């Protein structure tokens, strides 16, 4: 039974690796911090796995945990030295180590601008760009769809303004 759970969990992680990576990358620029954050997200997902409520989509459940962990982790001072049993290897990583910023300057700017947003705004735009509709965003964050709509417009405007200031693009 435990092995079956483990197999199911690993399949879920493999299927949602991009989602986990993108959340971690939006809250941690530093490689080491991101590695720790991915480990923490996967650990918390595993701890909550047995309590997963199928009334929600799996992606909704993963987003909630990943964003909650990322926001709390981001605000907490790094505590790597406090861990008694860290797993040093990277759990989710890019096979091609060519940094994204060298292959796509605009994407690098977009990621930078997203990281400059407030934590909740960051979550909103991340979900929006991922293609979640307003209802889903509202469900994940716990705010009304009207509020989502207003916030999305404002954040998009902010991003567009930031892009417009870069003459080289």
């Amino acid at each position, binding site marked *: 039974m435990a092995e079956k759970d483990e197999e199911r969990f690993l399949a879920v992680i493999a299927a949602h690796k991009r989602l986990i990576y993108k959340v971690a990358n939006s809250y941690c620029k530093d490689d080491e911090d991101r590695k720790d954050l991915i480990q923490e997200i996967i650990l918390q997902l595993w701890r909550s796995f047995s309590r997963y409520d199928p009334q929600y989509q799996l992606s909704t459940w993963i987003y909630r945990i990943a964003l909650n962990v990322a926001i709390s982790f981001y605000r907490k*001072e790094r505590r790597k030295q406090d861990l008694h049993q860290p797993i040093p290897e990277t759990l989710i990583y890019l096979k091609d180590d060519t940094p994204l910023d060298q292959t796509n300057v605009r994407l690098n700017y977009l990621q930078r601008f997203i990281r400059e947003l407030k934590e909740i705004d960051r979550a909103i735009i991340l979900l929006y760009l991922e293609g979640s509709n307003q209802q889903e965003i509202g469900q*994940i*964050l716990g705010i009304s769809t009207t509020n989502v709509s207003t916030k999305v417009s404002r954040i998009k405007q902010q991003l567009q303004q930031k892009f417009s200031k870069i003459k080289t693009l």
Partner: protein
Amino acid sequence: MKETELTALWKAYDQKLEEHLQVNRQHAADITRLKVQSALSSMKPSKIFTLFIGLIWVSLGSTVVFNLAVYAPDKVSIFFLLSAGFQLILTAIALVVYLYQLILIRQVDISEPVLAVQERLARLRSSTLQVTRILFLQLPAWTTFFWSESMFEHNHTSLLILPVAITLIFTAATPWLFFNIKYENRDKWWFRFIFSGKEWDPILQAMEMLEQLKGYQKT
């Protein structure tokens, strides 16, 4: 940049990840088997140390004060017994509140909606201020524990003015601090002065988060 460009850019990112992102299956499996320590829900050694020291202080202190009060009341000043007793009771209350808050933080269900979880965590973290408020109530006790009955019998009034004045100042400051150490006063100079230092950062950050969350709760 147009909205379509923004989404196209994000799709390109997605494509890049789709092609190159790998899961280290072995290490992901390790997480399900090993007792990996969580960076978020594990308790900091400094917090355990604070609780431990507090517990020793209260246990030893109350044993000494209790024994003196019961077996040798004539050998010790009533001021010392009352001051020490008051200080120990408040420290014990603060310890219980602190421990209760740490337990509540660990029990938060992180699969609930993000704003609700962040608000609960931020409220619990910022409520550590309550512990500080309780501890500030001890201030007058630290100015009276060395008093004795003979001090009032044998000393000239002029010599009593200073210790009594200090106690009165601390007694006046205590309720003021108790009622004014709160979130709304976080920008006041005296608040920043008391709570300067790295150890207060999580509480101040929690307060900032509460402020940020206000903007999302309107419908």
